[in-house]
């Protein structure tokens, strides 16, 4: 039975094209360095799997560090916004604060509500945690820094990230708390709704590039900043903003943080969680935040490609990380500035504005693709001019409206 599985697996690997990096790596780098006795008897397929496992191990070890950094960053950013210093005690400049918090959470009591559904309660954090980390498998961090190259990368990401809502509902239901239930149902409604504009704006990209593979999407943006897909057509420009706002809603952050609205429903779906299980939710939230930013960068902002064609300036892994962290920073900025929407307003925004605009985008992208050869200089030029004119006129209209807006002051009698 095991043999059968193993053979099938090896066959599958063989079926992939010869440009499998793990295989290349094993054959060209590892094989010559191995002792003769081992190298002769080690099949290439097993070696390839070993290389993949080692890489996966590194990935699993490194990616959870991201939330550690992001939590500290969030606290420091929030502190700056609020005239505070943030954590300063643990480690130099408070750098070890998150670690200390993690240690504290590990030692806390793992409380399970006796009236709740124990199995679901214990399972829920892992579902969310696993899903939000599985997303990273398809994100290309750099030319060769990619856990798995699918030809349906973005589709896989959409599929996996929508499983998160299952975990949220499980957590809310199994807690046997009314606040948790309210929070989880809010979350379910919100995530399911916002997945539609999110998917539709990704579709515009897929239409332009003609591929679902993350690597190919990035490869089509290798000609510097103006070949980034956000500037390719006016419709992708709009799509980027819809994508980003929907992504904020997907990861439940202010102004869309209704599922965990502290002032309304205490802590939402994770009200009853404590200790390490709570920490898993927390880590997953920040991992998610980075993941959606990274997806946004990959799809719209050139991925690991640099700003200038042919140069590596702001390219590669550092460039990718910088761009993603930029988007993460905008999310933090919004969180510490804006109040929260109400449930009906949230749904209005999604169903009455974002989805129709997204459909218009898809329609427009189709027509754009009919008229222009999309990576042609002319089409990019025309697109940039349209975006520029649109932005200027939007600014002018907004400015006039703001100027006309009366000073909101009840007059004194």
């Amino acid at each position, binding site marked *: 039975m095991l043999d059968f599985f193993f053979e099938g697996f090896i066959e599958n690997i063989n079926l992939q094209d010869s440009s499998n990096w793990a295989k290349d790596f094993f054959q060209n780098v590892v094989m010559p360095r191995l002792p003769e006795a081992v190298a002769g008897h080690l099949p290439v397929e097993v070696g390839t799997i070993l290389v993949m496992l080692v890489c996966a191990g590194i990935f699993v070890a490194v990616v959870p560090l991201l939330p550690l950094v992001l939590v500290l960053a969030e606290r420091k950013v*929030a502190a700056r*916004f*609020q*005239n*505070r210093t943030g954590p300063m005690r643990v480690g130099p400049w408070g750098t070890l604060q998150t670690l200390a918090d993690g240690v504290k959470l590990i030692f806390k009591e793992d409380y399970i509500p006796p009236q709740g559904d124990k199995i679901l309660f214990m399972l829920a954090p892992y579902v969310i945690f696993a899903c939000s980390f599985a997303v990273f498998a398809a994100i290309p961090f750099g030319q060769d820094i990619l856990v798995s190259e699918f030809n349906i990368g973005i589709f896989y990401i959409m599929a996996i990230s929508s499983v998160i809502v299952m975990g949220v509902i499980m957590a809310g239901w199994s807690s046997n708390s*009314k*606040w948790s239930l*309210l929070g989880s149902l*809010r979350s379910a409604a919100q995530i399911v709704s916002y997945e539609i504009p999110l998917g539709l704006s990704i579709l515009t990209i897929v239409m332009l590039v003609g591929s679902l593979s993350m690597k190919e999407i990035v490869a089509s943006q290798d000609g510097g900043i103006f070949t980034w897909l956000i500037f390719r057509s006016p419709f992708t420009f709009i799509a980027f903003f819809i994508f980003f706002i929907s992504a904020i809603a997907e990861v439940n952050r*202010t*102004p869309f*943080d*209704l599922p965990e*609205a*502290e*002032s*309304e*429903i*205490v802590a939402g779906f994770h009200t009853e969680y404590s200790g390490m299980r709570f920490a898993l939710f927390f880590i997953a939230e920040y991992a998610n935040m980075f993941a959606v930013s990274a997806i946004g960068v990959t799809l719209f902002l050139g991925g690991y490609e640099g700003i200038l064609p042919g140069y590596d300036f702001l390219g590669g892994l550092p460039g990718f990380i910088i761009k993603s962290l930029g988007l993460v920073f905008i999310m933090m900025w919004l969180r*510490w*500035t*804006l*109040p*929260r*929407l*109400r*449930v*009906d*307003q949230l749904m209005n925004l999604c169903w009455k504005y974002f989805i129709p605009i997204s459909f218009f985008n898809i329609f427009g992208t189709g027509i754009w693709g009919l008229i222009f050869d999309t990576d042609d200089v002319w089409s990019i030029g025309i697109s940039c001019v349209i975006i520029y004119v649109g932005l200027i006129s939007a600014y002018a209209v907004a400015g006039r409206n703001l100027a006309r*807006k*009366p000073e*909101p*002051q*009840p*007059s*004194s*009698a």
Partner: protein
Amino acid sequence: MESTQQTESRIIELKPFTDEMIVNMGPQHPSTHGVLRLELRLDGEIVREAIPHIGYLHRCFEKHSENLSYPQIIPFTDRMDYVAAMNQNWGFCLAVEKLLEADETKDFEVPERAEYLRVLICELNRIASHLLSFGTYGMDIGAFTPFLYAFRDRERLLLLFEKVCGARLTYNYIRIGGVSEIIPLEPGSVAEQNYLDEIEEFLDYFEPKIDEYNDLLTSNSIFSERTMGVAVMPAEMAISYGATGPNLRGSGVDWDLRRDEPYSIYDRFEFDVPVAKDIPELGAVVGDCWSRYKVRMDEMKESVKIVRQILAEGLPDGPVMADLKAVRPPQGEIYFRSEAPRGELGFYIVSDGTPKPVRVKGRSPCFSALSALQELSRGLMVADIIAIIGSIDIVMGEVDR
């Protein structure tokens, strides 16, 4: 027969019945401003009924007062509205002083300097109270940052209070017949000048900040979406529930005791009374959450105006305490009301001529405003309940006493 059954089933389909969920909001809840318990009957997110249950912070203020001498009651008033304790002290002292004035055998008058100090401190206290209200309201709606901005500024005010009475929250500063002399503020001394300079410095810093807060929160479009047109309390309803202060003025009733029934020396100062009005361009309706909130924001500016006038005049010379051997009001009863930050604060005192009152009753503005919650919240959403509680600005210490 068959056709009727079909119609019936159609009717049932069109009106699906869902169970109502009863949820307890509070007494331990992040945004019930203390220990208010709300019994919510929810249909999904929609609130069918919100029944407030109070009494979790009841400390028998009125009964305690019957066993204490008049000056000993003042610290208890501190614990009523602990956000605006100066105004509570003052409200009680005003009532007792009114009772003392009825005694014709003694010539009793609060010194001029004490009156100025009282107005100065109480208007600053009003700013502190409204700042807290502004900050927590932002937090209720979901914006965290205004809360810390408000506390940053309130901190400076608390330091100013600390310099004059040694306490930050429960002051016991305003006494019957004047103000406390624990930390002496000699007329014309360097200490007095420094103190007034410090207040001026604060006002210069704070006045532009109000506009900044208006930019940050008041005119934020999400904030106005959440508060404008929500929970409209018309003028008749506000009056019939006995809502006072910013809640009443937020409903468009032009009524402020400081101007309409001037007590102390309020008739010497010029200030406007902010009253809400419809702003159709923005969507604000008189009596909605936004109007109540905005009245508070504008009142801070008016308080700044009053304090500036005092600073321009300077404090008059003289004692800060009336020549009062013992507080022993004549037989009689009194009801006196003053304008605290949250509305009309009234004290009803019955005296039998002994140093202890027979009966003390506090009329709490928050209690009256809170009673309107049940009617205001019907048919709104859970998030709106939070918006209402924040906008009527309750302090549970005063509701329960």
